[in-house]
């Protein structure tokens, strides 16, 4: 009997520990559930309010209409001008960020000495950490006056200045993701090419870039997705005129800028204007989610294994 006592005590303590462990596991799984709930919340909110919107405006009219006058007394809800505005800004951003990002990635990964790399890389990281509102300020107060001197016909708010600023914003991201991909290419491949008498240019463009191509392209797609979702730069610099144009010197309005414009005004909940936020948001969410899934798919499908 005396011998049994410590054993009994131990089981009691054991049971207590086990109970505590179970509780902790449940608590932690609830924490993990928050991010699942966030996804459900995003999709749920976007869908439920959009359904209300599409009861009043047909989906076909929304997706194919070329006039967006949501804030006027006789509103028309054709989303294409907003899509066009987003497209112009994104294309300009890519024209800036993709070649420069890839170029600086090649430099950092293939040409730069350790010391130069040590200085250049943190600088690009600082650029990546600057809030986008600061780029918006830069676009409006620095880029826009320059653009107006070069092209006197352009408006104060124009897609070009917004697009350039968006390009500068996504540049560090494209550069660092592409550089990571290039540095992951095994050294033996480079050395093989050097042994055959290749120059650095040939090693970079014929060996390293092709070997890392899937990750490089996925970094471009992530950059495009980030450019489409950027709000503050375009809200400040690209204007607030829904404009069915591809002319970068005109004032446009992107999907995000429209959402921001409506939200910063006084909108009554439940009204049609309030619901347009969610309909445009749903379109934005679908586009960016599609691009993110595509970029993951490309890496998974075309990744070269060594």
């Amino acid at each position, binding site marked *: 009997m005396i011998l049994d006592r410590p054993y009994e005590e131990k089981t009691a303590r054991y049971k207590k*520990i086990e109970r505590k*462990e179970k509780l902790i*596991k449940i608590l*932690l*799984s609830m*924490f*993990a559930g*928050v991010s699942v709930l*966030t*996804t459900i*919340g*995003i999709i749920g*909110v*976007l869908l439920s*309010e959009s359904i209300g919107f599409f009861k009043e405006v047909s989906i076909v009219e929304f997706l194919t209409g070329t006039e967006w006058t949501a804030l006027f007394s006789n509103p028309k809800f054709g989303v294409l001008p907003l899509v066009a505005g987003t497209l112009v800004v994104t294309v300009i951003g890519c024209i800036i960020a993709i070649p420069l990002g*890839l*170029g*600086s990635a090649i430099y950092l990964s*293939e*040409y730069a000495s350790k010391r130069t790399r040590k200085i*250049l890389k943190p*600088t690009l990281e*600082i*650029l990546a*950490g*600057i*809030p*986008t*509102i*600061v780029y*918006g*300020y*830069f676009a409006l*107060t620095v880029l826009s006056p320059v653009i107006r001197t070069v092209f006197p016909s352009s408006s104060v708010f124009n897609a070009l200045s917004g697009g350039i600023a968006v390009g500068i914003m996504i540049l560090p991201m494209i*550069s660092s993701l592409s550089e990571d991909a290039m540095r992951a290419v095994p050294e033996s491949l480079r050395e093989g090419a050097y042994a055959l008498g290749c*120059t*650095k*240019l*040939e090693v970079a463009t014929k060996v390293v870039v092709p070997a890392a191509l899937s990750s490089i392209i996925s970094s471009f797609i992530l950059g495009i*997705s*980030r450019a489409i*979702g*950027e*709000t*503050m730069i375009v*809200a*400040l610099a690209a204007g607030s005129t829904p404009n069915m144009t591809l002319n970068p010197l005109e004032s446009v309005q992107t999907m*995000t800028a429209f*959402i*921001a414009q409506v*939200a*910063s005004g006084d909108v009554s*909940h439940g009204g049609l204007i309030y619901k347009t*936020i*969610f309909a445009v*948001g749903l379109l*934005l969410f679908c586009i*960016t*989610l599609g691009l*993110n899934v595509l970029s993951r798919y490309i890496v998974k499908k075309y990744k070269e294994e060594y």
Partner: protein
Amino acid sequence: MSNIRSRRIKNNVFHGVVLASALLGVVVLAVLLFDIFSSGLSWLNAEFFTNYTSRIASRAGIRAPLMGSIWIIAITAVIAVPIGIGTAIYLEEYTGQSKLRNFIQLNISNLAGVPSIVYGILGLGVFVVFLGLGRSIISGSLTLALLILPVIIVSSQEAIKSVPKDLKEAGYALGLSKWQVITGVILPYSIPSIMTGNILAVSRALGETAPLLMVGAVSFIAFSPTGIMDSFSILPMQIYNWTARPQEEFHDLAAAAIIVLLVILFITNGIAIYVRNKYEDRLKG
């Protein structure tokens, strides 16, 4: 032999081109900082920090948005950090390589790619309207917490993954329970890099504008918040408002506010790097 010469020349030209594209980032950063400091620096004085905003540029200050930003960031951190670290522990230590883990992980990486303004829409729909929290600090903080959660989770996971397996197994061999291993072995080892990632994520939230624009950060507010249900302004919102005005002096005010924002970001990032370097040495030594 001219073939080799032309290949060498091409290589040198290419070297110049990629060097130029790498340097362009540095040039842009320099121009950006020069422009902001040259327009904003002269506006920075004690009154700029103690005055509320005003329609007269010379009397305008950032008291309300600065206090608002501090409130928002503090509450965002209180909400997001425990949930983020908890999720990371759950994924790394409890789920193994199960389907559940893959599902949550995929979900998190999708969330990381959602534009910040969509989080704003979520906050507007759920916190402001559905839960009736209104355009308040708590709505803003909850929204930002959800926005930075994926970043916190992923960086905390990386930190937890870096704990050597033999340390954990030594803990289990001594008869420790899972939670005892987590609190006694894993967290003490990985807390410096967890903190680094968390500080960086929270400081990124400091510069976020779009989501808080959606949940109702206003730019003309003449009181400092005293509780979580108060309405609020934040520094980036004030910068937005001043930049959007046509008058030149308000642009300079915006530049001054940007200097304040950048200095705060610089300090918080500095702290994060300091924590990492300090404890890295300790663990190595």
